[in-house]
């Protein structure tokens, strides 16, 4: 397997409290990697370290290497804004910009980057919405407010917004926990389509979701990586007892 991201000896803190300990893991290119574990185990912190979002929290810091295509994103000459463009993120709660239209939401990142050509912006709007499997549902309402959409549509709008800036990796932090089962399966189908072109990391509390969509699964506990392997193996025959106890619900 070819790794898009290689994480070496990653540690993270909130103030004096260490929340990640010596994480070593490889994220497969054009694969979906699921991160599972109980609340507070460091899953979200982990993925926020992958696009330097962790450091935007006051008193938060990280150490170690996060190599994206062999280049450490924590190198001093690296622009974190550029990293966040290359490594996009979709959050738990759909968060379209409330005052913007659907169209403006999609191209917000491009406009912020200085792109003004209306033709290009329109093409990008259509392409991104198509990639996010939302185009057919909204193509006649592009000027309507983003928040007029249903929860599932809003989440796909956020995915379109993340795709518009042409990232290489998309991080999903519990993308379906606020959605109904039908919207959830649409997002899951979409992730499976998107992995053809992008590398995906998803944090999820829903074990069935991890089992359904991911190629590899990592189990985190108390800020440590306990087990990492092919999803099929993790859910059929995990090597570590604590992984097994967690996934069969015999934890605590």
């Amino acid at each position, binding site marked *: 397997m070819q790794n898009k991201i290689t994480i070496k000896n990653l540690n993270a803190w909130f103030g004096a409290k260490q929340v990640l300990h010596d994480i070593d893991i490889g994220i497969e290119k054009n694969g979906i990697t699921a991160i599972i574990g109980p609340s507070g185990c460091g899953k979200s912190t982990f993925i926020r370290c992958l696009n330097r979002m962790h450091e935007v929290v006051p008193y938060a810091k990280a150490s170690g290497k996060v190599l994206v295509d062999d280049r450490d994103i924590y190198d001093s000459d690296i622009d974190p804004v550029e990293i966040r463009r290359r490594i996009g993120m979709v959050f738990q709660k759909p968060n379209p910009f409330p005052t913007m239209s659907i169209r403006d939401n999609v191209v917000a990142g491009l406009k912020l980057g200085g792109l003004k050509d209306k033709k290009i912006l329109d093409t990008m709007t259509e392409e991104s919405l198509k990639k996010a499997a939302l185009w057919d549902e909204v193509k006649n309402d592009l000027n309507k407010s983003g928040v007029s959409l249903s929860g599932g549509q809003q989440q796909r709008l956020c995915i379109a917004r993340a795709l518009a800036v042409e990232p290489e990796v998309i991080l999903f932090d519990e993308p379906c926990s606020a959605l109904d089962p039908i919207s959830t399966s649409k997002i899951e189908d979409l992730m499976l389509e998107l992995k053809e072109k992008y590398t995906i990391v998803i944090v999820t509390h829903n074990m069935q979701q991890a089992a359904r969509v991911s190629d590899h699964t990592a189990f985190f506990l108390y800020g440590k990586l306990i087990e990492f392997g092919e999803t099929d193996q993790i859910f059929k025959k995990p090597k570590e007892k604590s*992984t097994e106890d967690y996934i*069969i619900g015999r*934890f605590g």
Partner: protein
Amino acid sequence: MVREAYHKDLHKLREEILNMGSIVGKTIGDAVLSLKNRDAQMAQKVIDMDKEIDALDHSIEENCMRLLALQQPMARDLRLIISVLKMSIDLERMGDLALEIAVITKMTASVPPIKPLIDIPRMSEICQDMLKNTMIAFENKDVELAKAVGKRDDEIDMLFDQVRRELISYMIEDPKKITGAQHLTFVARYLERIGDHITNLCENVVFMVTGERLELN
């Protein structure tokens, strides 16, 4: 996140398959005993027992299906359910074979035996012992015991060959004994099949514990 009701259901499933194993073991023993003692009444009891075994099989299937649909079991729980589901099929087939033996008892109880039965009861005893140990291996998650039981199928196969050769010689010597000898050949063949089913049970015990599919015989 302890999921108590779910774990109670899994425990119940384990109890159900253990119960089915002990009933099937007794049925096999009774079927061969009825043949040896030419006891048609006992044979009828074995035949009646088949309905109960079928009902257990259905109940286990139903419970497995419910757990799969409602609880999305994983890892060792998933392997337990898959193993129990498959073991129940083998046990149900073993019950059918015991019934076939009892049917032969009823057909032959009123005619004089062609020979005293020695090896067939021995096959039955070995089968019962193998089944008992398989269920112990299941209960204790004992892979080594399951493997050892699986190997014993060779003893059954050897006895089957011996019985078959002996019965052929009876048929050659005295054509009047052909019908009786043929019935006994079938009984031996049914016991040989029961041995194969027990081997399958053992393979499922190994799978349940280790996740590996082994061919034990």
